[in-house]
């Protein structure tokens, strides 16, 4: 007798397509598949059970990323004791069931079905771009189809046209078998519902929106439909142009903080396509338009691949060999050190670079430069997260994994627009919302989540920019005064002294929704309803973005959210938590890697003697115990003449940082500006040394995403610059007298692990074995930690912090009556250095200013008019778009195009604790303008 094969996820090859999604039941049932016993969770389909024992049943409409549909009729099986031939994809396994997947009757039925499909399909396999990668072709072979009796003369769909409107993929309806996989992927996986089946019967066809071209439809080009298509109906243009890939490399996307895993598919050294990895912990097979398609910038003609130097920014760049560039940079920095002291130089690390690349830069600054003047671009995005979560929970990190949201009963989304800025997680949120979770959106704008297909935010609190803390205090006031505090959780897990102080503060009448309504613009009853929903729904989870942090009270707001989560017991288990949606791919990692001027790797203060001695011992150098300067302080010091040299890794501060003129003046004042980047960015205009960087396709290392997931970044192609970025940094360090003789990125990670308790178990070997791990990863958690603060907070007891609302200095006035806030759009990414060099510009060729109809009318503006935007910091121009997504009194724009000069008008206000710029509140006036700045 055969042994029963138990369901064991570790033993199943999940990279293959098992046909239908897995079941989650703890109850196991045993069935016989062609005589082979297999034990699976109750609810598992016959198709999946069969695939698990290697009996792959022919299929076309089924794929394991989508719910079973049962339309293609190819996966028929026979079940003993049951009449007919049911579809195996829609038939669940039952105890004792005996299934036959291969019989003469089934063979005949399947051949008949395939014959019908093929009779209406172009017989152009040899010239088809999917030749060799086509499930229809595979299934024709699998069922043994040898001839088609019906000929091609009858009615068919072969003359249907091809939609080539999308820049990245084509839609060839003549090849469509109407399996609905694309339609279901768009709805189930992506949640956009842009596709449908139009018509009936033989006239049925896939239709984007109301039979529009893809480009004009609601399609967001995530690629889920292309991924799902079993034929060449939806096909990447890169595959059509280059051919079917011949080799694969697993790696990690370099756009947002979701950190999606991809398989790069290549021909030789040329990327043909990026396919989202089904086993990727962050994305589970999904992608967005940027990660899936917008990787062409890596080969863009603007890439600079040769080091360049110049004596003065007035001179032309002079391409030189690496050694000469490094020697030039080292001599300049050493000369500044000798003349002006070690604190006259510093460095900035990049969240677009790997953990290993960041680590060596901060090590070079501390050990070779001899200063703690190192900062990172997280200064301008999530530095308040670091401060606020460390004060309250004890460490700077989101509390959950992304999968946690599947157990959330109510989501509170604050100052984030996940469907644009973190689209793959946004899709995951939408799935949970469609399944019944409630939604609270706290945002001045009516973001996509507020109302989109099958989703409606029960609570949208459209607060005035700058009043986040007041709104959160009011929510906590309702919780505290209506008996909604989780007393047991607070007593067991939190510091009671701080709780009592906070409770006394939050109960003050001045924090009531009614008292704050005029300031916040949020109706008190709406706020009370949202507070009750969050506190009583069961699992309440907070997700937030830069709309929280980029304020003068960004850090206070982070602590206010942490207070609320602790007070309601929404921390320390699946489905809850406080979760920053990190802007760039490696913001978490760059912060983890000791990029802040007051902290070593792992968030340990430089004044801690024990920690510093540990680093000194391994690094072989004495280290400073005083904090270094933050970016704005370095720039200020440059203007006063005391700071004169800077190494800038992969960041364009002349475009991304606030008050552009101030940044430009500071950079101009320096004797040595070294820029390491892919392109000659805006900052490079002020540089003396340009060190060419590597794209993510050339990097070897790790990224850490917003859920603390450390993922491998593998070199897909050889470096176009001739060396890795960390090698360039090490060469510069050696030129300054401090060699860092690493042989590989893996060796750098080994040193990180040796010095960092939360990374102690991390190695490239471990990551290659497990795919990814979430820190802390050490002896206590050898495979990582998906949920933090489960039994105790990192700091021991959770610390409540009182959070008085202090209005920003930036207020609307008669001269500047509107409040400008900024954000991202789906197709573009931050300053656009990458996405502007891809076909994504078709969706967003320029930044525009969204303005409410009433504000536009008051200024005589029509949709599409040029407008001048003036603030007390500066002025710029762009086109206006009348929008009802924003309330009157507020205007909104993106900052993806340097010509827009959005940061010319943002002010020098910043978060009180971290100096994170207040991008989200700028008082402006809008006037009609004749046109764009020359």
């Amino acid at each position: 007798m055969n042994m029963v094969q138990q369901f064991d996820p570790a033993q199943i090859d999940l990279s293959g397509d098992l046909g239908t999604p897995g079941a989650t039941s703890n109850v196991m049932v045993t069935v016989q598949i062609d005589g082979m016993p297999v034990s699976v969770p109750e609810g598992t389909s016959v198709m999946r059970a069969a695939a698990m024992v290697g009996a792959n049943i022919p299929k076309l409409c089924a794929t394991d990323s989508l719910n079973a549909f049962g339309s293609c009729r190819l996966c028929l099986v026979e079940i003993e004791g049951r009449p007919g031939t049911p579809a195996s994809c829609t038939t669940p396994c039952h105890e004792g069931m005996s299934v036959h997947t291969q019989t003469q009757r089934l063979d005949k039925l399947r051949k008949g079905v395939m014959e019908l499909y093929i009779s209406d399909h172009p017989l152009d396999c040899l010239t088809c771009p999917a030749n060799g990668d086509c499930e229809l072709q595979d299934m024709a072979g699998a069922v043994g189809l040898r001839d088609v009796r019906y000929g091609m003369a009858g009615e068919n769909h072969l003359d249907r046209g091809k939609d080539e409107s999308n820049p990245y993929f084509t839609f060839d309806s003549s090849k469509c078998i109407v399996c609905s996989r694309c339609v279901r992927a768009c709805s189930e996986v992506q949640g956009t519902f842009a596709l449908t089946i139009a018509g009936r019967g033989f006239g049925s066809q896939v239709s984007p929106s109301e039979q529009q071209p893809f480009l004009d439809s609601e399609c967001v080009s995530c690629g889920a439909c292309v991924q799902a298509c079993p034929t060449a109906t939806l096909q990447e243009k890169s595959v059509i142009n280059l051919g079917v890939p011949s080799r694969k490399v697993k790696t990690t996307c370099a756009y947002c903080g979701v950190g999606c895993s991809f398989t790069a598919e290549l021909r030789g050294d040329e990327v043909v396509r990026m396919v989202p990895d089904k086993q990727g912990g962050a994305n589970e097979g999904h992608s967005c338009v940027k990660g899936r398609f917008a990787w062409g910038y890596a080969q863009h003609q603007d890439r600079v691949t040769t080091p360049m130097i110049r004596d003065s920014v007035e001179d032309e760049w002079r391409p030189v060999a690496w050694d000469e560039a490094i020697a030039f940079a080292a001599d300049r920095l050493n000369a500044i050190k000798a003349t002006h002291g070690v604190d006259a130089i510093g460095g900035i690390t990049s969240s677009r670079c790997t953990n290993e690349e960041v680590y060596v830069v901060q090590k070079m600054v501390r050990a070779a430069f001899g200063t703690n003047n190192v900062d990172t671009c997280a200064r301008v995005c999530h530095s308040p997260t670091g401060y606020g979560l460390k004060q309250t929970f004890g460490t700077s990190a989101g509390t959950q994994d992304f999968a946690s949201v599947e157990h959330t009963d109510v989501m509170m989304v604050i100052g984030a627009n996940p469907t644009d800025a973190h689209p793959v997680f946004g899709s995951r949120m939408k799935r949970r919302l469609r399944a019944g979770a409630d939604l609270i959106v706290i945002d001045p704008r009516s973001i996509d989540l507020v109302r989109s297909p099958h989703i409606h935010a029960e609570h949208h609190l459209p607060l005035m920019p700058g009043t986040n803390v007041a709104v959160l205090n009011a929510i906590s006031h309702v919780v505290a005064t209506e008996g909604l505090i989780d007393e047991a959780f607070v007593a067991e897990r939190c510091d009671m002294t701080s709780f009592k102080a906070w409770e006394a503060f939050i109960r003050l009448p001045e924090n009531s929704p009614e008292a704050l309504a005029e300031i916040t613009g949020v109706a008190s009853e709406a706020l009370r309803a949202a507070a009750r929903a969050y506190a009583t729904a069961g699992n309440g989870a907070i997700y937030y973005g830069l709309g929280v942090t980029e304020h003068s009270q960004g850090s206070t707001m982070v602590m206010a959210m942490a207070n609320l989560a602790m007070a309601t017991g929404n921390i320390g288990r699946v489905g809850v938590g406080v979760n920053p949606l990190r802007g760039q791919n490696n913001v978490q990692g760059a912060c983890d890697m000791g990029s802040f001027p007051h902290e070593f790797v792992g968030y340990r203060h430089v004044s801690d003697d024990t920690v510093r001695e540990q680093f000194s011992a391994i690094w072989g150098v004495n280290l400073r115990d005083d904090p270094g300067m933050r970016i704005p302080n370095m720039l200020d010091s440059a203007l006063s003449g005391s700071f004169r040299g800077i190494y800038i890794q992969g960041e364009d501060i002349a475009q991304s940082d606030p008050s552009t003129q101030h940044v430009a003046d500071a950079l101009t004042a320096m004797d040595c500006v070294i820029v390491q980047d892919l392109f000659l960015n805006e900052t490079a205009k002020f540089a003396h040394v340009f060190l060419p960087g590597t794209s993510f396709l050339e990097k070897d290392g790790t990224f850490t995403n917003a859920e603390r997931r450390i993922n491998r970044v593998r070199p897909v192609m050889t470096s176009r610059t001739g060396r890795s970025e960390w090698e360039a940094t090490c060469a510069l360090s050696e030129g300054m007298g401090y060699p860092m003789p690493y042989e590989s990125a893996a060796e750098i990670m080994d040193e990180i692990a040796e010095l960092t308790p939360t990374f102690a178990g991390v190695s490239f070997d471990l990551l290659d074995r497990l795919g990814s791990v979430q820190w802390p990863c050490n002896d206590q958690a050898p495979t990582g930690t998906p949920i933090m603060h489960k039994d105790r907070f990192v700091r021991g007891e959770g610390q409540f912090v009182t959070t008085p609302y202090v209005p920003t200095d930036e207020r609307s006035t008669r001269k500047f009556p509107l409040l400008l806030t900024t954000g991202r759009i789906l197709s573009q990414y931050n300053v656009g250095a990458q996405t502007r060099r891809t076909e994504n510009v078709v969706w967003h060729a320029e930044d525009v200013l969204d303005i409410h109809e009433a504000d536009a009318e008051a200024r005589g503006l029509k949709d599409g008019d040029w407008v001048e935007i003036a603030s007390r910091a500066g002025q710029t121009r762009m086109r206006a778009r009348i929008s009802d997504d924003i309330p009157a009194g507020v205007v909104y724009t993106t900052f993806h195009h340097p010509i827009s000069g959005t940061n010319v008008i943002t002010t020098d206000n910043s978060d009180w604790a971290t100096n994170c710029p207040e991008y989200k509140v700028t008082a402006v006036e809008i006037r009609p303008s004749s046109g764009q700045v020359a």
Partner: protein
Amino acid sequence: MSTAMDYQERHLVKMANQIAGNVPVRADVPQQISQHMRQFWTPVMQKSLRQIAAETPDSLCLDVHTALQNL
């Protein structure tokens, strides 16, 4: 605030006063300011602020002055 201050000095004053206005526990604001500065400000920045406090005392709030005595 003195018009003689340069950008860096004006920024330091703004930062210090902003910290004073925002530190969470209002019971001992100077103590929290000095703790914050020790943790995040360079010695040069602290020294500069002391100098500003001496030269243009009106630019800084009372809590900052008290905090500087604790640094």
